[in-house]
């Protein structure tokens, strides 16, 4: 397979892999490095890659492992998303912008505070719209584990949202 064909084939996964890695490493530059490394490794393993039935799950698993390695090697915890969420529509009023920003930041804090597995399941289900089976394949866990993590993540988010709303935050 030529490089151009290869890049064309896996280009469709670039953004979802980037978002997934960003959820784990918390930094845009590091997430981009991870995705680059994933693509390079996938290219080097062409013979294995071409025989894989679930390409996306293969790539997500590699992204997960490389992201966790990067996180652990630098001894850092995942940080809040930064500049990406500040790109708001020009038609919004300053007050509306501030309110939406606060909301987004509040959710960022909540999601960032989830345990690692719940964070990954949250990302794949809520953001990427994956089925429970697809999530199980990507993370190499059972369907039951996926359901449990989905349930726990949503429960935590619901409680914190209600608490914030009750305090008028």
């Amino acid at each position: 397979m030529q490089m151009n064909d290869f890049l064309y084939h896996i280009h469709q996964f670039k953004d979802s892999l980037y978002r997934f890695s960003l959820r784990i490493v918390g930094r845009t530059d590091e997430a981009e490095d991870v995705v680059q490394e994933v693509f390079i490794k996938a290219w080097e393993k062409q013979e294995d890659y071409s025989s894989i039935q679930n390409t996306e799950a293969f790539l997500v698993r590699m992204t997960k492992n490389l992201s966790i390695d990067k996180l652990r090697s630098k001894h850092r915890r995942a940080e809040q998303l930064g500049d990406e969420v500040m790109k708001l529509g020009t038609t919004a009023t300053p007050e509306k912008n501030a309110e939406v920003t606060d909301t987004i930041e509040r959710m960022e804090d909540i999601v960032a505070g989830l345990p690692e597995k719940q964070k990954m399941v949250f990302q794949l289900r809520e953001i990427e719209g994956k089925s429970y089976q697809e999530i199980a394949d990507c993370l190499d866990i059972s369907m039951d584990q996926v359901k449990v993590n989905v349930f726990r993540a949503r429960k935590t988010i619901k409680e914190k949202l209600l608490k914030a709303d009750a305090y008028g935050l």
Partner: protein
Amino acid sequence: MDYNDIILLLNKYWDGETSLQEEKILKDYFNSGKTDPRLSAYAPMFQYIQKEQQVSLDNDDFSSEITNKTTRDNVKPLKRNQIWMRMAAAILFLVVGAWIYCSLQTDNLNNTGSKYAVKVYEVEDPEEAKIIVKEALMMVSGKMNQGAKKASDGINNFNKIKNIISRKGK
């Protein structure tokens, strides 16, 4: 969908029982701007999700950077059998070349009677001839093994250094 329908879906959602289609209904509802005030506490979650889905890797040079990195790092170390085959070919070439050279020199000496003549033994006994050839071949073989080992050691050291440099560069 009215308030009661949304409540039913939400309860399923918190229990992890909704389908992807049902979750899309909830996302669309909470991002429609027409959220019932009684449900406003949950709106941030679905607004956040919609915002996150728009995050993308914005690097126009992404593909070319990957191409450059794979091209630059594409010099793979030779496999062992390839190394030995190349060494064997090189040594064979040298041996054949030396043999031809020596043959020519011997012929020249025999023809010209040069003062640099080498003593040429004429062996009449086949058994003696066998022993002499065997010893000669063993001597050549020994020299070849020494050379092959030195070349192999050199290549192994080169590969080790190359790997160290590659790791440090990442």
